[in-house]
């Protein structure tokens, strides 16, 4: 009897540990994720963004399709820890669907995302996404790598459930490294721009001329 109870009590511990690990991972990613609200005559969008380390400081990286079209346009940025600030569109590529935002008044302490290389992933590896699907703030989704980027310009594809509001948010590995920026859902697959493509764009637009 005692042994049976011990077994019954021990069995769920494995998946409780998994849930605990995911919770920790979500907390870690939320620190580097922001909520972006763009409202203008032509656009009223809510998306996610990632605090990204650039050579010149910290920027917000998101999708081009969640921010207004012109350089200098204003968007509203909120951090999960509660800070709010205005930001400007610094650079935007419709082709890559990437935008770089400059924060007007960055808070003193910012958690910047660590990034990883999507090209070294293996299909089947577990990935997590953080975002605001249908406006739900800071929601976590879990899935696996569907296919690794084909060549240097390909997309990272994930078998993961995403929704509008995940756009611009991080797709990360289990150690919290951001390997892509979620940008669309195609036939049920989550499509992300690999971090090295984002890095390339960020470096290109922020390099002093």
């Amino acid at each position, binding site marked *: 009897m005692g042994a049976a109870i011990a077994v019954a009590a021990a069995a769920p511990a*494995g998946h409780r*540990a*998994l849930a605990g*690990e*995911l919770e*920790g*991972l979500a907390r*870690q990613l939320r620190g580097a994720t922001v909520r972006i609200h763009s409202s203008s005559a032509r656009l009223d969008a809510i998306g996610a963004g990632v605090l990204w380390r650039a050579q010149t400081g910290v920027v917000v990286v998101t999708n081009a399709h969640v921010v207004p079209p012109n350089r200098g346009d204003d968007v509203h940025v909120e951090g999960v820890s509660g800070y709010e600030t205005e930001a400007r569109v610094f650079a935007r590529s419709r082709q890559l669907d990437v935008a770089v935002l400059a924060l007007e008044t960055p808070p003193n302490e910012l958690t910047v995302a*660590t990034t990883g290389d999507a090209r070294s992933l*293996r*299909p*089947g*590896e*577990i990935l997590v996404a953080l975002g605001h699907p249908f406006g739900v703030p800071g929601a976590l989704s879990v*899935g*696996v*790598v*569907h*296919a*690794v980027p*084909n060549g240097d310009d*390909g997309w990272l*594809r994930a*078998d993961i459930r995403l929704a509008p509001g995940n756009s611009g948010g991080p797709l990360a590995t*289990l*150690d*919290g*490294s951001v390997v892509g920026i979620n940008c669309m859902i195609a*036939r*049920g*697959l989550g499509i992300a721009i690999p971090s090295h493509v984002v890095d390339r764009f960020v470096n290109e637009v922020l390099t002093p001329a």
Partner: protein
Amino acid sequence: MPSASPALRALSNDLAAAVERAGRSVVAIHARPRIPASGIYWRDGIVVAASHTIRKEQDITITLPDGSRVRAQLAGRDGGTDLAILRLDANPSASAVAVASRGGDEALRVGSLVLAVGRPGDEGVSTSLGVISAVGDKWRTWSGGEIDRFVRLDLAIYDGFSGGALVDADGDILGVNCSALARGTPLAIPTATVDRVVDALLTRGHVARAYLGVAMQPARLTNALAEKLGLGEAARGVLVVMVESDSPADRAGLLVGDVILSAAGQAVGEPQDVAELLGAERVGADLELSVVRGGEKRALRVTVGERAPASDVRRRGRG
């Protein structure tokens, strides 16, 4: 950055290793416009595919896991189970592709973590994760194929995934994924069925289907008749409502209006009961029928025939 996921990390590594291992047996098949489909290297020189993804019979090429392209010939297909087999023109080297390593039937359990592994093109292997959502007994597809176990999946069969492998967390292959057998519902055809169909296609070119040539409907005997014949109350049978001319049933003398009480010694109450006795192994064998005709019981012996192989049924199904 904290890397605080030992258990998850282990699971993630297991899943990636399973995809890698199974992926050595999963090939891409170029036999339709646009998206290629997946196939499994089932035996030496033989690839199993989903029949609905093979849209042309000539100039079929296959991308092997090492990236090389080889030519293949369609060696047979079975619309009933939606399986097809392709024979490679030349046997590939062991480093190019590995024969599928199969898991046992005991791995088919509701709730088991499984992966669908496909190769819809030349860009490498791809996958989706889910669970087995239902496991049932032997069933028959709407087009008459016999499938040994009903295996329903809760995972995404993406475009080009039909014909790919259902894989357990060890990387063993449990079946062939197909989205075209039940209105797009993701199902897997278990390995036992695949083996049986591959054997049949290789030896005869098609899968034999037993055939009587009758249309039937359920019937209940009147109490008076049942009593007269010494049957219990509520005796049931199947009423013959049509006999195809020159069919096995016709040659055996079965008539419209006969009520079949039993076949091969087993009581039958539904047309399905008779159909279930007509497995491929019955072709050419005698089937003893007990029928009621004109209020009298009589025995008939039908030599079971073989249905002409159906041409491939074009199916609707993603993947």
